[in-house]
């Protein structure tokens, strides 16, 4: 069993799935689930020593620890999403082509993570882009898929330019070779570094490039959104790791002045990532639609990953890897839960929902773990990664990015509470009384994801040791150490199990006091102290819209970046209009005029 056969079989099952689904649509979901779970088992058992398989022309594979880590992550996301969407009888599942696109996207991303040379990586990257574009296209809206495709195309063309620049300057397309030779004679190395990071920032949705995320996540079909948000946007992080590891910017940027030991360029990019955190958090607080809120929060979380990568210390890189996993698990859980909600209530606008926790408690618990991990609170994996990143920021003394990270984590508490209280807590509207708990398939997938988040959150040392192995494989000099149960940071160490222990002890004490005290009477939701107001209907009694009004008023005039892109698009339109008016008018005399004018220019130009 080698990587090439895994990918080829996934592609073939995709095509087979298309034809089978045309006969019996519901079978499509089965195939998607079965294929992705099989892939999960194969990769899990194979370990990172999986052979790359025979070379098929340009397409050669080589499984590296980093690649294996990413593949495991994306297969986990796709298989749990497959299990979840299997149970759901979603509208998208009547589209036979959905299964094919779903498996194509999975196979292509596996291709990216194990590609041995840049061209193979680029080819699979593009296949992942256009298969997910068409999958988003199946949803209810065109703006999302077009802006997704437009931005991903921008990213992949930047990457193509960089690859070809490397290829032509160093005569090789092998990933490791190209980057290491780039170190010795740094001809286009600087340009390559910027373009590569630019393309990964587009995919991760860092601030100036994030405009595709809100429309894409809202308009994508509900089954595909978790896979897109959790899995596919992580492709960008993979290339960012490759480039910043093999082409350490300090290597060839030695000359220029450095800020706190970090070369000026990567400090600039770190500032950009921190701006993305602040901007993403502010925009997330302001959103009315749950999916948009999560989209902006992934823009913010993308910022943490980029900061972790660019700092280059052992703790920050391992923090970035862990945060990648934490964010993937949390976003997939959140979007799967939203998928359930949208399927039953028909909308993901937060003010139209409320009190759903009383109807679907287990889903609520899964959503709670996801939100805690997004915010980075202790028992969850999100806390471990945030701890690592903050530790390395503090030890490197980068105070502005540290301020941004801190603002991000505090601000995330606000928008996390917003989505929790408006969707799950608060008043249950009469029309939602008939909602049931999500089906067992969905619950199973949510259980796996939140179990992983919590389990790794409490016992992270296994994961941290693997990130150390990745750092070693990426050629970093010192890697993150773990002593027994605790992670040994530069200025302090973290024993997640001990924290969980302390918390549980506190829980026991609180429970003891709570249950010793007299039992309290269960009261209906509407029966609360209304300080003199007489409110008769749950709709009025639910605090949903304009949630953080006082805080939002402060930054009302925050300029939205998407207006910049709209201006760009209309500029091209005007240019097109001008060209049509000038050169394509149907009057023969105008054509004759243009021919003579151009002849004169060319002839007399030749003389001067």
């Amino acid at each position: 069993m080698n990587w090439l056969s895994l990918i080829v079989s996934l592609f073939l099952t995709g095509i087979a799935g298309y034809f089978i689904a045309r006969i019996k649509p519901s079978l499509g979901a089965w195939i998607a689930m079965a294929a992705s779970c099989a892939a999960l088992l194969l990769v899990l058992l194979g370990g990172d020593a999986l052979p790359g398989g025979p070379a098929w022309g340009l397409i050669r594979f080589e499984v590296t620890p980093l690649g294996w880590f990413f593949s495991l992550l994306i297969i986990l996301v796709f298989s749990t999403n497959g299990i979840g969407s299997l149970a759901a009888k979603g509208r998208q599942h009547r589209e036979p082509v959905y299964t094919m696109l779903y498996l194509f996207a999975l196979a292509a991303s596996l291709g990216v993570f194990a590609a041995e040379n840049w061209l193979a990586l680029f080819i699979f990257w593009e296949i992942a882009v256009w298969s997910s574009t068409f999958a988003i296209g199946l949803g209810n809206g065109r703006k999302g898929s077009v802006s997704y495709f437009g931005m991903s195309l921008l990213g992949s063309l930047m990457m193509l330019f960089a690859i070809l620049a490397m290829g032509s300057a160093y005569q090789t397309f092998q990933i490791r070779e190209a980057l290491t030779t780039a170190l010795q004679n740094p001809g286009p190395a600087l340009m390559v570094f910027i373009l590569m990071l630019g393309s990964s920032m587009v995919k991760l949705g860092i601030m100036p490039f994030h405009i595709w995320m809100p429309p894409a996540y809202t308009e994508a079909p509900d089954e595909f959104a978790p896979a897109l948000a959790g899995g596919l946007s992580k492709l960008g992080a993979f290339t960012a790791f490759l480039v910043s590891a093999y082409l350490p910017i300090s290597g060839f940027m030695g000359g220029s002045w450095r800020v706190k030991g970090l070369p000026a360029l990567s400090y600039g990019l770190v500032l950009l990532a921190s701006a993305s955190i602040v901007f993403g958090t502010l925009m997330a607080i302001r959103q009315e639609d749950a999916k948009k809120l999560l989209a902006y929060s992934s823009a913010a979380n993308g910022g943490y990953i980029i900061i972790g990568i660019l700092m280059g210390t052992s703790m920050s890189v391992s923090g970035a890897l862990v945060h990648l996993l934490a964010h993937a698990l949390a976003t997939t859980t959140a979007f799967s839960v939203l998928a359930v909600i949208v399927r039953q209530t028909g909308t993901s606008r937060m003010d139209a929902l409320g009190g759903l926790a009383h109807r679907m408690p287990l889903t609520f618990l899964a959503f709670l773990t996801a939100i805690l991990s997004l915010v980075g609170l202790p028992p969850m994996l999100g806390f471990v990664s945030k701890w690592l990143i903050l530790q390395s920021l503090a030890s490197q003394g980068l105070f502005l990015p540290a301020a941004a990270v801190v603002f991000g984590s505090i601000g995330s508490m606000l928008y996390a509470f917003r989505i929790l209280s408006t969707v799950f807590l608060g008043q249950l509207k009469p029309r939602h009384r008939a909602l049931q708990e999500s089906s067992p398939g969905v619950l199973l997938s949510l259980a796996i994801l939140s179990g992983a988040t919590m389990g790794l959150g409490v016992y992270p040392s296994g994961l941290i040791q693997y990130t150390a192995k990745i750092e070693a494989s990426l050629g970093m000099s010192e890697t993150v150490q773990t002593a027994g149960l605790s992670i040994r940071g530069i200025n302090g160490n973290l024993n997640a199990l001990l924290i969980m222990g302390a918390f549980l002890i506190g829980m026991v004490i609180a429970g003891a006091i709570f249950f010793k005290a007299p039992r309290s009477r269960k009261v209906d939701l509407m029966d609360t102290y209304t300080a003199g107001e007489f409110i008769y209907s749950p709709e009025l009694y639910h605090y949903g819209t304009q949630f953080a009004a006082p805080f939002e008023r402060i930054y009302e005039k925050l300029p939205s970046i998407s207006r910049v892109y709209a201006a760009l698009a209309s500029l091209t339109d005007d240019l097109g209009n001008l060209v049509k008016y000038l050169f394509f008018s149907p009057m023969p005399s105008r054509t004759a005029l243009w021919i003579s004018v151009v002849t004169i220019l060319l002839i007399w130009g030749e003389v001067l």
Partner: protein
Amino acid sequence: MMELLSLSLLFLGIYGLVTKHHILKMIVSLNVMETGLNLFITTLGYQEGQIAPILSSQFPSSALNFVDPLPQSLVLTSIVIGVGTTAVALAYAIKIFKDHGCLDLEKIEGRL
């Protein structure tokens, strides 16, 4: 000298095409352009004191100083092409007149 004249004739034709909007006038200027071009090509093959390239009783031998015959044969072809295009152009003129009732392209263009 002759080349300058023929060139100006050619570009006079183009001037007609650029300024005139009436179809028949444009066809006329097309012909003026063709004639100018043919004249120019024939003058390429001419030199002072050379005779027509035909062997006849007065000029029996091929050693005589003949004019370059090739441009003349090219012009022969180009003239016939001119006839072809003018015929088709006139057919268009009739068709456009039948469709739009007027031959002024500007008005037709305005109406579309």
